């Protein structure tokens, strides 16, 4: 039986909106394994902002908000 991964359950944040779904995950994945979505190389900060935010990737600029997971 083929397992059809549902992208619905993946917490795809707004930064991933413009990425085609097939690039996020391999089409066939195994159960009971943890996966990290494919990270695209786009949406970059300029060097000055990058150093301040600690990442060049806007999508990875995720400050810890005390467990609330909200962006400021």
């Amino acid at each position: 039986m083929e397992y059809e991964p549902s992208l619905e359950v993946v917490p795809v944040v707004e930064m991933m909106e413009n990425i085609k779904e097939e690039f996020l995950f391999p089409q066939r994945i195994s159960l009971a394994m943890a996966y990290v979505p494919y990270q695209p190389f786009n949406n970059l900060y300029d060097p000055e902002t990058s150093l301040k935010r600690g990442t060049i990737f806007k999508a990875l600029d995720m400050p810890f908000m005390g467990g609330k997971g909200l962006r400021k």
Partner: protein
Amino acid sequence: MNNDRAQMLRRLQEADFAMYEAVLYLDGHPTNKMALAFYDKAAKAYCDLKEKYEMTYGPLTIQNASGPSWTWIQGPWPWQNEMEE
């Protein structure tokens, strides 16, 4: 440390950081063309800035410390670093 120098050092740190971000990405995505192009650009920016900085203010790393005299000891020492942020 004067303002120009601090500013230039800051630009250098930014270029260095951008370059290493690309390095980390490329470790996991070694054939990504955009990342490769970004790395090339960032590495060149870093080298250019470093050269420019060292020409004006002296060596940042020991490999470039040699000269007519031992330029490494020309200040400021780390504990004399007044650059803040």
